[in-house]
């Protein structure tokens, strides 16, 4: 049941983030009609556009390490409230990320529960869209610093 709710929230978050200017055409993964193939196709289009103008297209592919584990809840809330995202969605996200605990079971031995303060859950459908919102400024800051570059980002919850 929890996963069903999460799937619904993913869609609402994606729409709201796009409306508030946090996500745009360059954010792929975890959004409708913006799959891996679309991202690759857009790269193809941009390379073709560069070729037509007589340029070549250098591509730099970067991967954020331990992405979901490194996310800060407080900063995410600041980003969401700063862009005046819908209050219900902000509160739902805050609740989703609060009072989380981790418990390890090794060969039947249950270990003590530990609170989890940082990061977002691996394997949850909501995590990619929250991460996309979290890193929404990253692409823009790169494009502002280096003239003539285009940024594409892709996020999934497998890796």
């Amino acid at each position, binding site marked *: 049941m929890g996963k069903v709710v999460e799937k619904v929230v993913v869609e609402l978050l994606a*729409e709201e983030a*796009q*409306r508030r200017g946090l996500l*745009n*055409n360059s954010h792929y993964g975890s959004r*409708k*009609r*913006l799959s*891996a*193939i*679309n*991202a*690759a*196709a*857009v*790269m*193809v*289009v941009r*390379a*073709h*556009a*560069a*070729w*037509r103008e007589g340029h*070549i*297209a*250098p*591509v*730099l*592919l*970067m*991967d*954020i*390490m*331990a*992405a979901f*584990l*490194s*996310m*800060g*809840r*407080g*900063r995410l809330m600041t980003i969401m409230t700063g862009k005046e995202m819908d209050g219900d969605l902000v509160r739902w996200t805050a609740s989703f990320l609060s009072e989380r605990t981790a418990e390890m079971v090794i060969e039947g031995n249950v270990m003590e529960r530990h609170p989890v303060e*940082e*990061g977002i859950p691996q394997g949850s459908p909501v995590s990619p869209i929250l991460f996309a919102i979290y*890193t929404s*400024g*990253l692409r823009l800051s790169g494009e502002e610093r280096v003239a003539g570059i285009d940024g594409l980002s*892709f996020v999934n919850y497998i890796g």
Partner: protein
Amino acid sequence: MDSAEGRELEFGTAKTEAALLTGRWGHKKHLGSKLTAKIRVGNGFIMFNKELTRWLGVWMDANLRFKEHHNRCTKKARAAEARLRKLTGMYGIVPAWMRAVQVRCVQAVTLNGSELWWDLIDGSRLDDLQLLLNRQARSTLGALPTTPRVAHRGNSGLTPAAVALDARQQRYIARLASGWDDPKSNRRYDYSTPGAPVGRVAASEHAGGRRTETMRWQDPGEKPAVKTTILEVDSTAKRAAKGCVRVKEGDAGSGTWTWWMDGSRTHDG
């Protein structure tokens, strides 16, 4: 990104890659000299890949022909087909089930990323896929290798390679196009950009409950070859004939083509 709450986000240098997309004719001109160039990332330097670059499951070469991607997918699919054949034996399982397994386990691998390289006019690389499909058809029906192809091609219920490739690309474009008039989101792509799969929809108009799109298969400036009509989701036709909905119709040369949801087309010219 400096983070007061949560840790700093860090790019993994081990997974960082650089590629140079030079185009078909730029390859000789640029690649030789640029290959010694490096990109500075953080404290280290990244060299440009001399061979292929893999991104999001797609193998990219310098001129974006995706030949190696196609070769790898076909090889993987062939291996999957061989394993299936081994599992099911000479006479296979019930053909309908075998067909379902073939479509999901073999065809899905073969067609992965084909939206990016399949060209209706060019038609190259079709033979590889059709040969594999012939093997799949034989596996589906438990036919001997000497059985005439005509007999098992039709009876296996597997879609011919050209139609499957067309269908995949058409569905992909239709899926992209379906987001066009969405009032909640902005327009997503610059469709006026020619020369790549996503650039093939040239114009869109809305009238009488139908969205009409003009598809461009030739270079910019030439007359549109295929006019496409996508019926709305709640259209009568769609409700009446699930699985075989007429989604596109248009002019192509002398006659009219009708495109079907399963990728087949009829030509009455």
